[in-house]
């Protein structure tokens, strides 16, 4: 299980270095933008000469914050399931429900961010932009579906394991 140790270490590193500081930062950012709209200039949308109302940008930013929170929560659940793998309990009910939850959240957030990106380009920049390549949104949807499939597989494996244990 050396690979699992490497994976857990990497996931822990990402969690402590990226996700944990991100939570207070996004909370601060989402509250502070209502007091100082200049902070939204980091998106570089206002500087490109695109005229948009600040409330519109605030709504978009809030949606991005929500999507980001979903990713952080998914990552948190994934990190937790790795602990079960280390305890050699891969078919635990928690792992199955977590993978299902992660899958659903990733699919929904992937679809929503794709729609959001499309509408943002259409309404704000007046561009009709469709991305069909190896984009992050498609990748996130695929990842979500993969987790859903994995959850179903684990459910089947759990039943098979129970049957095997109860075969005398």
């Amino acid at each position, binding site marked *: 299980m050396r690979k699992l140790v490497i994976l857990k270490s990497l996931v822990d590193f990402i969690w402590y270095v990226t996700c944990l500081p991100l939570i207070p930062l996004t909370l601060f950012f989402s509250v502070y933008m209502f007091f100082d709209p200049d902070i939204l200039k980091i998106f570089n949308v206002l500087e490109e000469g695109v005229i948009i109302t600040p409330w519109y940008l605030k709504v978009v930013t809030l949606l991005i914050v929500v999507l980001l929170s979903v990713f952080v929560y998914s990552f948190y659940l994934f990190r937790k399931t790795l602990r079960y793998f280390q305890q050699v309990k891969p078919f635990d009910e928690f792992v199955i429900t977590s993978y299902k939850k992660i899958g659903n959240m990733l699919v929904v957030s992937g679809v929503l961010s794709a729609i959001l990106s499309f509408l943002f380009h259409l309404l704000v920049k007046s561009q009709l932009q469709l991305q069909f390549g190896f984009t992050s949104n498609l990748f996130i949807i695929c990842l979500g579906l993969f987790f859903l499939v994995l959850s179903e597989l684990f459910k089947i494996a759990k039943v098979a394991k*129970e049957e095997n244990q*109860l*075969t*005398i």
Partner: protein
Amino acid sequence: MSILVNLNLMLEKRNMKSYELAERIGITTANLSILKTGKAKAIRFSTLEAICQSLDCQPGDILEFEAD
């Protein structure tokens, strides 16, 4: 469950204890208990053969079908 395990009855007839049978057929008493209480999902042919050999009986003496 519609398949009943009459192992207790056979053990009584042969005047044998559960642990003795478990020892003879090479399974744990915990597994034998699972089999006796009807919690088992399946039984291997090798286990059935060993039980029949030890108790000198037929599979039909141990297993019984009961319609729901």
